[in-house]
């Protein structure tokens, strides 16, 4: 429908008087859809009434959506990482330990966690610069084990496999005499995570729009041709990975301070590596809205439906989703929707 309209409009306006403004065109229906979705998400905590579970699940969906965006920054350069849990765990431990030993505010320590993640990311791009495709995937999978085993065994500093307990929670913020507390308040946590998702989503969007993002996609499609055109392949990829690792580390730090308890097997788990990958690929990793779409569909489905049927092991949903997505619609839901709209 929309496409047909646009094809006809030029003929329509040819007879229009000069100075006729293009802004007179009616807004496309999708704008209303987006606006409705945004309003629904902003007012969501007030619909659920006193029941906290919907609010909490949506908040965590935003959190994993933010992780998926961070993961996708690297995947846009054509690399599939199976090891983002390394950055997540380093961020969580960096931030938690910094606030434990140095006693500074969590608002500062999450950046320390992010920098730790970024450092490890830079190490990856130096060491793995010659690896591509499946071999890179294997190397990333194996490199989660290194920080995990170190944290697990360095008992005197990281408290080992017992985990770090009693991490300082995010202190309240003051806005013009109004205090916003985050501890045990799901509504404020909801808005905090919505803001995190929006910020990382904006970074992702800016990345896609920028020269750098175009270079990244050129590298993804055809590396040799891209370097012939003057794209510095290693630099483009390395910077994307550093940014992706930094944002994942920051998410890990936020997670540590929200939950208040971290263990090596929890933050360096296969689950943390898999989730952003599943959400992005399911949503559509070449689309701006893909990762968030995946998070908003899959995570509530998992937590609200599957978890009530299978109290343990409900995460098999993610495995099934990734198998069916890769086999039947490799461009994800967003890509599939876009194709449908174009055809009709």
């Amino acid at each position: 429908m929309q496409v047909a309209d646009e094809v006809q409009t030029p003929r329509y306006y040819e007879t229009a008087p000069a100075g006729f403004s293009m802004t007179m065109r009616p807004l496309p229906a999708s704008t209303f859809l987006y606006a409705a979705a945004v309003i629904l998400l902003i007012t969501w905590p007030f619909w659920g009434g006193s029941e906290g579970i919907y609010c909490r699940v949506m908040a965590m969906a935003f959190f994993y959506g933010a992780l998926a965006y961070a993961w996708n920054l690297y995947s846009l350069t054509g690399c599939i990482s199976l090891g983002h849990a390394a950055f997540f765990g380093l961020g969580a431990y960096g931030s938690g330990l910094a606030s434990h030993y140095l006693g500074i505010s969590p608002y500062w320590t999450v950046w320390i966690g992010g920098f730790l993640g970024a450092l490890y990311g830079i190490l990856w791009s130096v060491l793995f610069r010659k690896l591509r495709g499946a071999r890179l995937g294997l190397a990333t999978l194996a490199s989660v084990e290194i920080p995990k085993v170190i944290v697990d065994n360095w008992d005197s500093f990281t408290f080992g496999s017992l985990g770090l307990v009693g991490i300082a929670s995010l202190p309240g913020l003051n806005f013009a005499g109004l205090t916003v507390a985050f501890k045990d308040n799901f509504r404020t946590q909801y808005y905090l995570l919505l803001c995190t998702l929006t910020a990382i989503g904006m970074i992702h969007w800016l990345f896609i729009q920028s020269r750098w993002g175009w270079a990244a996609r050129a590298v993804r499609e055809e590396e040799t041709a891209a370097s012939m055109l003057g794209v510095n392949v290693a630099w483009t990829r390395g910077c994307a990975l550093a940014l992706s690792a930094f944002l994942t580390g920051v998410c890990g730090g936020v997670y540590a301070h929200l939950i208040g308890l971290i263990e090596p097997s929890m933050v360096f788990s296969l689950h943390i590596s898999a989730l952003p990958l599943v959400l992005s690929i399911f949503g559509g990793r070449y689309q701006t809205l893909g990762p968030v779409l995946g998070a908003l569909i899959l995570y509530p489905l998992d937590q609200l439906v599957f978890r009530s049927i299978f109290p343990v092991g409900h995460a098999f949903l993610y495995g099934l989703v990734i198998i069916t997505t890769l086999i039947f619609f490799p461009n994800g839901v967003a890509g599939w929707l876009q194709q449908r709209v174009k055809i009709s």
Partner: protein
Amino acid sequence: MIFLQLLINALSLGSFYALVAFGFALIFGVTHAFNLAHGELILLGGYLAYFLVKYWQLPFIWTLPVCMLGLTMAAVLLQKLLQQVQPPYELNTLVVTFGLALVLQNVMLILFSANYRLIPSVELPFELTKFALNITEAQVMDIVVSLVATISLHLLLRKTFLGKALRATIQNREAAKLVGIHVRRMSLIAFLLGGALIGLAGPLYARTAYLQPAGGTEPTLIAIVITIFAGVGRTRGILLGGWVLGVAESLSVYLLGSGWRELVSAVLLILLLILQPQGLLPQRARWLG
């Protein structure tokens, strides 16, 4: 004497690792499918053996053929699944089997709970008091079974016509097609044989290490490390690789403590990948052996 004891432990562990790697190496060599669910399949075999021993009081040795049969069927299903995968084949099989590993882990968690399980050894360990050595029945079994598997796989690949066709497919798929080898049938056969070898490793896993639904990543990494070390289609190389890895892990446990053991295979894998970035598949004459 402690070093002799350590060496025996390392060799039995290494033989067991070689057994873990055989199925992966064969499947990967012939079909180029990176099977990240390999460890989970071994665990499935282990659980099958565990329940056979526990509820049907089957003697341990009889669980081996049952598991081989069961896992062969599972491997055929896996082959049917991986046939649907679109190119780039290697990367997409990696991601699909990553998903499959998640599914199997969680299904095992639902069915068998997160408890640690082990098939207990009935017999007491041999004690060679003269040398102060301690050898358990499981260790002897690991060594014997993996030697038998190595020899029979070697004979199959080197002395039979089928083995020749399999090796030709490993070396060059296009050329194998040109000389009239049915490559699709070869990949089915590779999955059948690989499944049988995974089924052989499963019960021994349940006896050597603790079964736990989330424990599949480690055998997968071990299988990949040994396959890259040895090169595909080199049976004796895999046994050697298993021994090297076993010795390396035992040494690290002896020198650093048991907490650092998991690091060994991960670091070795990364080093091998960095040092051989161009590929794991045969390209030079030395791979052909």
